[in-house]
């Protein structure tokens, strides 16, 4: 399996970090798809300036996490970038809970 992976997908330079990143996004989309098939999401208005469905909130959480990381990298460099990850996690909870 590992040989097949290295032989056929080695040109993509996969790392476990990027695999985890894409895996988490794919898993989130899959979970939301199943949830929406079972119980369709209704837009709701929270502290975000627009009414949002579950999918909107996932999109906004991912985009704001990327934005926070880029802001951190631009202002403080690559050191202590885990700080941006912690802030992103808090923001994602706030978006999903009351957004």
């Amino acid at each position, binding site marked *: 399996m590992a040989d097949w992976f290295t032989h056929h997908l080695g*040109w*993509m*330079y*996969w*790392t476990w*970090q*990027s695999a985890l*990143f*894409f895996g988490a996004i794919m898993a989130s989309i899959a979970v939301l798809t199943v949830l929406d098939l079972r119980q369709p999401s209704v837009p709701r208005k929270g502290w975000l300036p*627009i009414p949002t469905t579950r999918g909107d909130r996932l*999109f906004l959480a991912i*985009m704001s996490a*990327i*934005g926070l*990381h*880029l802001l951190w*990298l*631009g202002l403080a*460099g*690559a050191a202590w*970038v885990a700080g941006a990850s912690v802030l992103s996690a808090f923001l994602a909870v706030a978006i999903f809970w009351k957004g």
Partner: protein
Amino acid sequence: MRQHPWLFLFPALLIMSISAFVPMMTVVNYSLHNIFAGSSPEFVGLENYAAVLSDADFRGALVRQLFFTVTILLIEIPLGVLLAHAIPHRGSGMALSLVLLGIPLLIPFNVVGIVWRLFAQSDIGVIPSLAALAGYDYNVSLHAVDAWLTLVALDVWHWTPLAALLAFSGLQAIPPAYYQAAAIDGASTWSTFRHVTLPRLRPVLTIGVLLRFMDSFTIYSEPLTLTGGGPGNTTTFLSFLIARKASSYELGYAGAASIIYLYIVIVLSYVFFQLLSGKQGATAR
């Protein structure tokens, strides 16, 4: 039976996965490595992103890109609406106008760039000859202002017809009863445009602004063929900078810059979409 739409969507999703997601994943992976010719890739985490964000060349290209996009949106969308109003609404005049407006849209990007390069060529071009008659020393290869004006003129010539055609289709869909009601109420031309035409055009203008934003923000072929990014770096936009880095085999830097570029396009498109279509439901009723 209810799951049939998924079956019909599957081929499109499969093609999308191969043509969009796989290259994007590869670019993300590249952005996490230092990749130079002749050496094995070295994992560097997010350092390429930090390098890109602190790079003066990247920031300069981003500012130029934003300025170019704002400029052409401010010109093309109002001009397109104006042109749409000027098009006859029936008869052969309408058909002829639509065909003439469609011609620039059929010309490939690089051909447009080459044609305008010939227009702007200092020894044989029509623009330097006309500028010389007016006593102006026009030179697209030496003067940044000339290069910018020519690039904006090129884009306006190429893409205003798209805004005009979209606005025209929107105008055609407005029932005459709205204008009759406005006339009975004694509304001025401006009031009719502001309170009747513009709200009804909002959906097509939203599409027009989004298409023109995404297209102008990723412009590449036209500056490449017209100015080559010069004079100096004055028309070097983000796409051009990234292509230059990738061709000099700085794939890690180019990958990180591409992902940041993609992020900016997605965020700004989302903001534009929310701003322009936010009250669409209310106005369309």
